[in-house]
């Protein structure tokens, strides 16, 4: 119940950012859209699915993710039809399936997805800071640069966040050495 409330809160917050999304691509792509994904993620927090559904749901989530990453759809998301599509698909077809499939994904696949997310953010950051043309017709060139740098900062932050458990062990499971040895039976 608490998670549903959090989901609704995230969704309401995203809707409240409507005006800000028109003004700034950073607020649109890196605040509003993630909040919508978070809403779906939270809504599915306590749900479980059979293992067989994990991969198809992950593929659905990846499709929706790639769809909304296309610059033309960032423009489209500001039109009435696109806005409706954004509010429906980001929570229900990205956040929700991602949460449902995540527990079934092995560590290698998780690492692969994280590594790809980082490299993709890096490429996008480079593209948006260096493109000689406006990539989105709805935003100013200066805003496009801001978005590029925001992608790079996010990539750096996520890299640190994801590297900490790998390098120093999980905070809840104790240091890497002990956990690793107990797991391999030493």
């Amino acid at each position, binding site marked *: 119940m608490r998670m549903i409330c959090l989901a609704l809160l995230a969704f309401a917050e995203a809707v409240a950012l409507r005006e800000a999304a028109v003004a700034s691509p950073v607020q649109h792509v890196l605040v509003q859209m993630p909040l919508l994904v978070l809403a779906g993620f939270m809504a599915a927090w306590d749900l479980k699915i059979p293992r067989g559904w994990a991969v*198809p749901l992950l593929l659905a989530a*990846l499709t929706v993710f*790639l769809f909304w990453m*296309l*610059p*033309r*759809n960032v423009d489209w998301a500001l039109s009435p039809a696109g806005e409706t599509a954004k509010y429906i698909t980001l929570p229900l077809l990205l956040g929700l399936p991602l949460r449902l499939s995540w527990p079934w994904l092995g560590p290698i696949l998780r690492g692969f997805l994280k590594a790809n997310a980082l490299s993709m953010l890096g490429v996008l950051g480079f593209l948006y800071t260096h493109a000689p043309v406006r990539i989105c*017709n*709805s935003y100013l060139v200066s805003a496009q640069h801001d978005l590029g740098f925001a992608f790079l900062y996010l990539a750096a932050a996520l890299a640190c966040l994801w590297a900490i458990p790998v390098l120093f062990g999980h905070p809840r499971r104790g240091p890497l050495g002990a956990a690793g040895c107990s797991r391999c039976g030493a």
Partner: protein
Amino acid sequence: MLVRALPSVLAAVIGGGVLWQATDGAQAFTSEAARRLDVVRAPRAVPAVQLEDMAGRQVPLLPQAGEVVLVEFIYTVCGDICQIAAADFAEIRDRLQARGLRVRLLSVSFDPVRDTPEQMAIYGDAHDADGAMWTVARPLQQDLPDLLELFDVTVIPDEWGGYQHNAAIHVITSDGRFSAVYDTDAVEAVLAYAGGGQP
């Protein structure tokens, strides 16, 4: 094994299909590329709109008697891209004139409130648009939103009291349809297209 993989394969195929559709077959990733592709595939009928030129005369947007019309959207106090684009527009005019083609060039202001005929004349003077083959003109304020929508031109105010807009050369062919979009510096391509249907 096959049965277990089937839902995943299906999801991958549907996902690939959606993304293929969403990018017009991996051809258009930005809305600018998408509008250019769409216009070529499905030319759009241009309404009979009258514009006011630098001399205060009424000029039609639609091509008259078999001519081709090239349209650029501008605002006269534009500091960067419109100035460069205007130089390229002048070159296109000169070369079309030399070849004797029936083409009319229009720089259409999307800021009709500030761009009075006097203001447009200053812009015309600066770029050698004499009003004969190439003129600067403004629509009525009430016609502007429909025009921008028809040509898919997005105009947003910038930080310095000006605007940013997707600058391009829009071609209206002699049948009165908006049929192609070119980069403002694609001089050769515009010349080839505008001269294509005529001897």
